[in-house]
């Protein structure tokens, strides 16, 4: 052995054992300081959230830029020529300056459904109820998606999403430290969403109106996405050009019923104190991992030598076959989002309570944001449904492969 290695070994093998006195001396003082720090740092309750915002020096700097726009109750349509001209570029430009937004409204999808897709709903004991919500969100540097989101439900359940970490505090006191991307807004609902809208002008209509209560001119834009099964109604303030309200349906062809998101109040900020995105989690919080192995080579199917269309058809045919056979391990391998699902969650999420599922055909494949989307017609009990499935392609170690990413929008009956 080299003399250098001998010294390295001596250092590596050096060790100490500490007794309770040392631990008490070293750790005790640190814990006392942490306790003091914790008392100062307690996360704000919702009731004093606005007070913190208005008192924060950061907010004061941005105070001039705080814009609160509420939706008027009665709007009547007017002739376009009587209002100042509006162009989508003006709104995109106006919203470029705001990285933080607060919005409140109503969600028409149960909280359980919202998280069932991630297979964590049962683990988290999330309330099944749907309804009103408040949300604070901060965009990433490019204003393309959220980097921090805090949602507060009417029963005071708080859900916080920060990149790959999420925290949940339920009204009755249970708390969770979730290692995974549980909540984010993608695309960013103001700047990025409008940028996409501008590029995808398919089915875009404009109407002009006036809020009867305030006399303010409004612009209404309706937009059916050509790449996703979604439909939006936007309302812009003519003067500031900012988005005032937003409604989203998970079906591009049917927007008569309740929208899945109905955002009725939007507040714009340049910046807000970090405290807004804090949450107080006790040590007893349960730690849950929901990281999805989307880029793990052990998941998915090889796409070597196949065209994108061939690979899509092959993986989806195999996927639905495994669904039919209730081969849960096979499903987990092809569909990484289900990797953490228990058999019970799998049965519930894939609708086994409604009988077996049979693939009838895969329709015309189209290009989506994440990857190609294939409309799969399946037989479910006595009903035929179309489910748009997203396939994601990966290049790992110079080898091409693909996974079933998720479904796109809501399943719809065969027309």
């Amino acid at each position: 052995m080299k003399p250098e290695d001998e010294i390295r070994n001596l250092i590596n093998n050096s060790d100490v054992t500490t007794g309770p006195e040392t631990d008490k001396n070293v750790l005790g003082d640190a814990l006392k300081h942490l306790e003091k720090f914790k008392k100062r740092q307690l996360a704000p309750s919702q009731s004093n959230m606005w007070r913190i915002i208005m008192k924060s020096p950061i907010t004061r700097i941005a105070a001039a830029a705080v814009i609160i726009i509420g939706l008027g109750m009665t709007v009547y349509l007017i002739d376009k020529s009587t209002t100042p001209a509006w162009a989508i570029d003006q709104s995109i430009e106006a919203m470029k300056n705001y990285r933080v937004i607060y919005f409140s409204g109503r969600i028409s999808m149960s909280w359980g459904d919202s998280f069932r897709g991630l297979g964590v709903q049962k683990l988290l004991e999330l309330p099944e109820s749907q309804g009103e919500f408040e949300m604070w969100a901060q965009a990433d540097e490019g204003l393309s998606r959220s980097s921090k989101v805090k949602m507060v439900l009417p029963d005071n359940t708080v859900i916080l999403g920060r990149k790959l970490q999420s925290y949940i505090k339920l009204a009755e006191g249970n708390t969770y430290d979730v290692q995974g991307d549980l909540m984010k807004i993608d695309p960013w609902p103001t700047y990025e969403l409008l940028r996409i809208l501008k590029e995808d002008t398919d089915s875009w209509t404009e109407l002009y109106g006036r809020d009867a209560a305030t006399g303010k001119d409004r612009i209404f834009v309706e937009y059916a996405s050509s790449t996703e099964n979604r439909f939006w109604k936007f309302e812009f303030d003519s003067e500031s050009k900012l988005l005032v309200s937003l409604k989203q349906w998970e079906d591009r062809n049917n927007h008569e019923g309740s929208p899945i998101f109905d955002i009725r109040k939007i507040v714009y900020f340049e910046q807000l104190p970090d405290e807004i995105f804090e949450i107080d989690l006790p040590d007893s919080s349960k730690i849950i991992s929901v990281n999805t192995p989307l880029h793990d080579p052990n998941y998915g199917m090889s796409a070597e030598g196949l065209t994108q269309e061939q690979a899509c058809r092959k993986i989806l045919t195999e996927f639905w076959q495994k669904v039919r056979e209730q081969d849960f391990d096979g499903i987990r391998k092809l569909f990484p989002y289900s990797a953490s699902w228990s058999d019970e969650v799998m049965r519930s999420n894939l609708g086994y309570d409604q009988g077996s599922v049979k693939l009838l055909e895969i329709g015309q494949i189209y290009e989506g944001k994440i990857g190609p989307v294939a409309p799969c017609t399946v037989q479910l009990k006595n009903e035929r449904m179309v489910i748009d499935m997203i396939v994601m392609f990966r290049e790992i170690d110079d080898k091409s492969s693909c996974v079933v990413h998720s479904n796109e929008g809501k399943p719809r009956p065969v027309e």
Partner: protein
Amino acid sequence: MEDKLLVLRCKRGSKDALGRIYEKYKSDALVLAIALLNNTSVAEDVVHDVFLSFVQSIQKFRLTGSLRSYLLTCVANRARNVNKAKNRHGVEADPQEPVSPASDEPSRSIMCNEQLQQLGDAMAQLPYDQRETIMLHFQAAMTFRTIAKSLGISVNTVKSRYRYGLDKLRLILDREVRR
């Protein structure tokens, strides 16, 4: 990843997370401090101060690299200050003072294994600069360039301290074996 989570939880005031960080890195921190200062009591104070300072600055703390490296660098910095203070007050750390076992001081409870006692005794015979360079390179896994940056000296100076220190340490350890 685990360290990032522990730091995040610490930021939110988790005592459990701080306890886990302490349990995870206390031995490494104490070994470094003992090897540099050859005194368990002073080493304990240094590690105490490092953990206290870590908590006091937790709000602004951003973990960009390894938490272990960060804590060991803090230990080395504080140990250097302790050594400088001793020199300023004209009290040279006794190079022949053996690493104090727990039995010497009933209020302290640090038990060094045989290798650490041997290391501490040998290191105490080197100039402080040389033992610091050797420990930072071997125990804190710092490159010569990083050590040079951290100490504000040239890479060549670090290399020569390391080489001279290593040669001397080898002679001391050989002498011990022959005894």
